[in-house]
């Protein structure tokens, strides 16, 4: 196995025959000295023919190994920032890296080694090397190299084989179906652009809201998408906000009013939810989020004020507008 890595790509070349030979050699290495010792001791009993027999049998053994060696073939894996290619014998496979959720190792009962698996964000599993298995330490090296290169956070997948070290932590339960991966085009009548980042709120009542960073060519916009509507948002300074609505700027989240007036618009509390916040596909830490959504109804456009408290310390106020 050969791993070549630089700033722009990782190339992994595996010659399966070689791996197989190494395994056989390690297992049978002890046999050869013992045969030699036996021959030394009993050279009186066994005539020349015995050593000749050993030579012939070892030649036959070598030929059998060589045939096996030719049989096994090789695999190549190339990973760049955008795409991952896997070339196995006569088959190739490619996947955009934004769709890779995790690499993990699995011990299937039929094999003596470890298989490297890939999990996509749609929750489908792919055996990278088509049933070929590796030594656990080597498989771990491949997993770590690829995850480090792509910046994927490591977590425990059900049934994963763990070579050594700490028990990996499990990923938080999360619905995966709604994800639009980074780099896709976000397209609504309101705004159109490239998605740079995606966040997700999972509320305790079962609803899921999304926040996207959308770059429309000029600037970065924050888009909040809920079941009701899509809003383009702008962050407000919390001290200035509390000044404008005539409240003390040390106001805590649970002391927020039921309704207020900001710049001539009257806002009324619409939703009060709490739940979890995720900012990536794989997130091991639980981020608690509380949110109060205020709405100012109007004929032409709707305005919202969204006040969100992350992990009970970080308060954010955003003003949203939708036409």
């Amino acid at each position, binding site marked *: 196995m050969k791993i070549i890595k630089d700033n722009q790509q990782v190339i992994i070349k595996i010659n399966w025959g070689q791996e197989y030979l190494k395994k056989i050699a390690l297992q049978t290495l002890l046999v050869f000295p013992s045969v030699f010792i036996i021959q030394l001791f009993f050279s*009186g009993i066994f005539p020349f023919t015995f050593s000749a027999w050993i030579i012939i049998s070892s030649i036959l053994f070598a030929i059998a190994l060589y045939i096996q060696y030719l049989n096994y073939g090789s695999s190549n894996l190339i990973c760049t920032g955008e795409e991952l290619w896997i070339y196995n014998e006569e088959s190739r496979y490619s996947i955009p890296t934004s769709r890779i959720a995790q690499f993990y190792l699995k011990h299937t009962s039929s094999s003596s080694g470890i298989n490297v698996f890939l999990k996509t964000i749609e929750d489908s599993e792919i055996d990278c090397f088509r049933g070929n298995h590796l030594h656990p330490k080597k498989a771990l090296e491949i997993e770590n190299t690829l995850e480090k290169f*792509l910046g994927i956070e490591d977590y425990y997948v059900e049934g994963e084989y763990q070579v050594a070290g700490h*028990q990996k932590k499990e990923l938080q339960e999360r619905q995966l179906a709604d994800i639009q991966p980074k780099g896709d085009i976000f397209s609504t009548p309101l705004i159109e652009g490239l998605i740079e980042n995606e*966040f997700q709120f999972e509320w305790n009542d079962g609803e899921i809201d999304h926040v996207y960073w959308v770059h429309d060519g000029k600037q970065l916009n924050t888009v909040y998408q809920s079941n009701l509507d899509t809003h383009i948002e702008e962050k407000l*300074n*919390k001290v200035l906000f509390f000044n404008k609505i005539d409240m003390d700027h040390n106001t805590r989240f649970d002391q927020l009013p039921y309704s207020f007036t900001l710049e001539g618009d009257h806002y009324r509390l619409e939703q009060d939810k709490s739940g979890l916040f995720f900012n990536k596909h794989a997130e091991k*830490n639980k*981020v608690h989020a509380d949110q109060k959504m205020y709405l100012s109804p109007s004929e032409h456009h709707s305005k919202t004020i969204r006040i969100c408290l992350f992990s009970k310390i*970080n308060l954010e106020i955003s003003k949203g507008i939708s036409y």
Partner: protein
Amino acid sequence: MNIIETRNGGYLFTLKGKLSKTLQDEYKKRLKEEENRDENSSFLILMLLMIFPVVLIHPILFSFIPISLISYYFGNRLYIKKKEETIKVNIFEGSFAINVHINKSHFFKHFDSNNIEQLYIRKIEQNKYCLCLIIKHPIRQQIALITGNEDKLAELVDLKNKIHNYFDIQEDELEGEFNYEKLELPKRKRQYFNLFHQDINDIRLNSVIHLKGNDHHITKINQLDWKNGMVSYQFTLETEEALFYHSSPAERLLFLEKEMTDINAIGLNPCQTELEGLDKILYHKGTNFYQTEQNKGKLFEGKTLLHDHVLQLLYENKEKQRFLRIFVLDGDTKAMLGEIVEEHQLQEILPETEEWN
């Protein structure tokens, strides 16, 4: 180590390791007793009887019999001593058991959970650690359970903690106990380098960036992992200035900051290490700064954890052009004054000059 939750509400831990010497001796003793009435041994005798006529061909071939018997006996002992077995540790209400399977034979050691005082890890010799158990009855004594080298240490610590949690055992510090410090790593930053469409993740240590018409060399990178799951980076330039990247779910900021030498100017006392009650509006050189964010997190330099709980207060002026960042490090209150950098003013990130690893 793999953990399975069993149906009766207990746990089954499977790990590879070596049994301790005391348990190995116990196991060998039991193996001896078993051997006498084992089916395997009768099969061996049958084999010997079958081979016996072959041996009659030449008198020297007789020596094969004692050689094979001796090698079988010693080989078996050596095998048990050298081999790493799959050890299964089973815990459920009121019991704690160690299970080992070697060559179809089976070794089982059971402890009553009321009898367990506590578990701890001891360093026996260089690169060899042992998980020990202290029992109360019949006499208070320690029993060595599983030994392992440095690679296995993390698993042993995990196992110890899980058992303590399950049986609600109060842990006391013991003499000779090995204290294991868990290494904490920052959130992973991707390592591939984008030639086009570059972003903040392409800035590396010792790389060169083109900022506002000047080239700058990155001498240090600090990473802050916030409690809300977001990440901030501080890229220190060769000019004592630093490029600070801050992200929150609603916006992302990039500003060029410099440490304030006199923090009295913003009405801050250098001895003041409590930031909780700080004013929400600060005044400095004709501008009012309003607090916009308050965040807690961990500070890393490279891969080493420098501080566990860093509290940061972020202030901005009305036009969101100037920023003030206040935080406490080592009992020192520090303030950084920054000015915004538009994203298009950061161009051309060049890869690092030194070798990449």
